[in-house]
């Protein structure tokens, strides 16, 4: 009567049967411990949570791409800010030359020359370009935003328009004697008055026609998800237009040909224009500065967010590398035992003991 029975197949195979599984497990544990604890088959390990890790990774990619984009945006905004800064300080310097006490009979020529060179400088600033984009072109970044006032051949549209307006008002071109010296202060006031012929030269339509190719719409950039800000200034904004008004008036009205009382009227106008324009530019600079600050703040926030997301991916896709290393050791021992047992069991046979 037999109470226990084991077939030879089982007897010989039992120590070996676990070998396949042990080897597969060892392979997995090896891969985990060499990859800093990252699961050998992440999809199998996570199951329905695979979408979660994909989402986190997508978030990480998005933040990294956004940080790169914000770097480019910041460059553009900073360049714009610098250009505005130079335009403003030029304006303030010009205003300083107009201080009443400093003016004398010789001032007229100096001021006209200064105005002319500053106008060229202003146009230069407004035509600043970074990364293939004209900074002050609004969304029309591909075309030079402001046309040159002083041209080497012929007369620019803007200058011609001024000359035409002057001629229509006074009957002769600016700087022409003897007419110029006979212009009375009242006549000049009328010409320069708000809504007068001079102001009309800088109306929206006239500005777009004679001066600017820029679009009114500023470039808008997404600096964070769903946060879009203006990241450029159009050359069409009022303060910049006023600067152009200021310099073109100073350079083209023929200051030195006017009587001193009429000159005073022009000086008054120049001072008031310079004041409003530089103040306006300061305002714009403040807006741009706010965007700069916002980009910096967002950068810091994104760094924090990146750390959180990385942590999330780690928590999902990574196990404990130390545990994996321990598992490797354990499995190796088990496998060795299995090998040794297989060998020993195979040697056992009753035949060796009966003779």
């Amino acid at each position, binding site marked *: 009567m037999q109470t226990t*029975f*084991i*077939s*030879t*197949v*089982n*007897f010989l195979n*039992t120590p070996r*049967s676990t070998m396949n599984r042990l080897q597969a497990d060892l392979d997995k544990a090896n891969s985990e411990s060499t990859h800093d604890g*990252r699961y050998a088959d*992440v*999809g*199998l*390990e*996570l*199951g*329905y*949570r*695979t*979408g*979660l*890790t*994909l*989402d986190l*990774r*997508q978030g990480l*990619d*998005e933040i990294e*791409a*956004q940080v790169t*984009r914000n770097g*480019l*945006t910041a460059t553009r905004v900073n360049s714009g800010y610098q250009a505005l800064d130079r335009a403003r300080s030029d304006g303030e310097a010009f205003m300083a030359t107009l201080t009443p006490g400093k003016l004398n009979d010789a001032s007229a020529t100096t001021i006209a020359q200064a105005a002319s060179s500053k106008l060229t400088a202003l146009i230069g600033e407004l035509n600043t370009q970074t*990364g*293939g*984009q004209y900074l002050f*072109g*609004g*969304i*029309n*970044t*591909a*075309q030079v935003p402001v046309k040159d006032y002083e041209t080497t051949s012929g007369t620019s549209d803007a200058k011609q328009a001024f000359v035409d307006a002057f001629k229509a008002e006074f009957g002769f071109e600016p700087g022409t004697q003897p007419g110029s010296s006979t212009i009375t202060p009242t006549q000049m006031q009328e010409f320069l008055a708000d809504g007068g012929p001079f102001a009309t030269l800088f109306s929206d339509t006239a500005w777009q026609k004679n001066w600017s190719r820029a*679009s009114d*719409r500023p*470039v*808008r*950039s*997404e600096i964070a998800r769903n946060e*879009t800000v203006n990241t*450029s200034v159009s050359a069409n904004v009022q303060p910049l237009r006023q600067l152009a008004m200021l310099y073109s008036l100073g350079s083209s009205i023929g200051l030195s040909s006017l009587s001193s009382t009429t000159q005073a009227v022009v000086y008054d106008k120049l001072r008031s224009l310079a004041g409003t324009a530089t103040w306006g530019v300061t305002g714009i600079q403040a807006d741009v500065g706010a965007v700069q600050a916002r980009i910096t703040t967002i950068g810091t926030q994104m760094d924090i967010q990146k750390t959180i997301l990385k942590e999330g991916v780690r928590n999902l*896709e990574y196990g404990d590398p130390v545990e994996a290393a321990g598992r490797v050791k354990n499995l190796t021992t088990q496998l060795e035992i299995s090998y040794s047992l297989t060998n020993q069991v195979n040697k056992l*046979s*009753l*035949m060796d003991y*009966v003779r």
Partner: protein
Amino acid sequence: MSLSVALNTARGSLSANGLQTDTVSRNVAGVGDAAYSRKVASLVTTDGPVRVVVNRVSNTALFDKMINSTSDLAGRKAILDALKSLEQTVGDTEADGSMAAKLSALNQALSNAANQPNDQNLAKAAVAAAKDLARAMNEASTTVQSVRKNADDEINDSVVTINDLLTQFDKANRAVMTGTVTGADISDALDNRDKILAQLSQELGITTVVRANNDMAIYADNGSPLFDKTARSVTFQPTSVFAPGTTGNAVFIDGVQVTGSKSLMPLQTGRIVGQMTVRDEVTITYQKQLDAIAGGVISAFAETNIDATKPSLAGLLTYTGGPTLPTAGAVGLAASIRVNAKADPEQGGNPFTVRDGGMNGAGYTYNTSGDAAFSDHLRALQATFRADQSFPTDSELPTTASVMTAAQASASWLEAARKAASAQVDTESAVLSRTSTALSNATGVNRDDEVATMLQLEKSYAASAKLIATVNAMLQSLLDAVR
């Protein structure tokens, strides 16, 4: 009692001994064969000399359990293998090969282009990312269909194997019946028959009934007779080409449909059932998900008419039926989704149409003034890309979600299915291994046991021989006395 009777008995014992030794050597020969069941030569004492009856050790309960778990495992393995193939379309999360990752890359490319709309390289990069996404979807769709085709082929192979096995079974069954009637040793014939059953159980779940004269009938696990006196034919018409929307054929046993929704009592387990699940359920759902996501992307990039007088038309991504937008639940979108030639520089298109619109003509151009840094349309595209869309319920995707979330959900669905299938295979493997061990222990051969039996036989042979010699000596001394 006379000396001659004693001599006869000893002779009978010698021949019984020979039969028993034969059984031992058969058993030893069968040590390595898992399907071999131990033969037991038992002595039956009749009026005169002893007789040997050879029986085989069997355990019907364990055997039935073994073939059941074989069927179960074969089915689950088929599903797991298919899911592994499908998993290529997701890949390692780190490798960014999944559709969700490609969608994310496209989203990044769009954001980059929106940040510097005047840069042609960024516009080109956005088109390239869209192309990459379209290609990934095409490939995923091809993978799904090749998995279906593969499953269909496997079903066909299975059916051929079943028919072949049933023919073999017919012979084996006849041998058993004839042996039973003539009273011959049928143990090897029974082994042979069981072996065929074990093979059959891999293809489909079976139950068996033994009737008079050891005649066996086989029924599939839904009750259809596979073998009853004669083999019943199992038929299947394979499909040569699979495309999204292709419906494969069902398996019939004796003219009765046993798979698919039209079957009143479908098969439950076995490789056939596993492959049917792959061909008609898993892959169909996954294809639906791919198509739904493809449709979602196409409509997210659609160009809307400026005056809303004309319908929206396909934009950056289109499909074979474009530019009309696909209807909800359209089939095969993932297979035919592609980048609009009007935007693809490689096909002579203008990548800036992504920024300006106008792939469908004047009424769809948004950047009317031709500004280089026009970003409104790109931002609008991003917004629709992130916006929620509705997905068909039978795709098992969230009913309302963004395309991105849907792609992630699809990856989750697939990996969850794989995880579950893998766990089931592990469990079922353990059960099968345990049952096989138990069955082998119950019916297998122990070599040492056989050697010990052989030693016993050796001794009893020696005893019988000695007995003959002794009787011979006694008779001799009697003869000597009478001389």
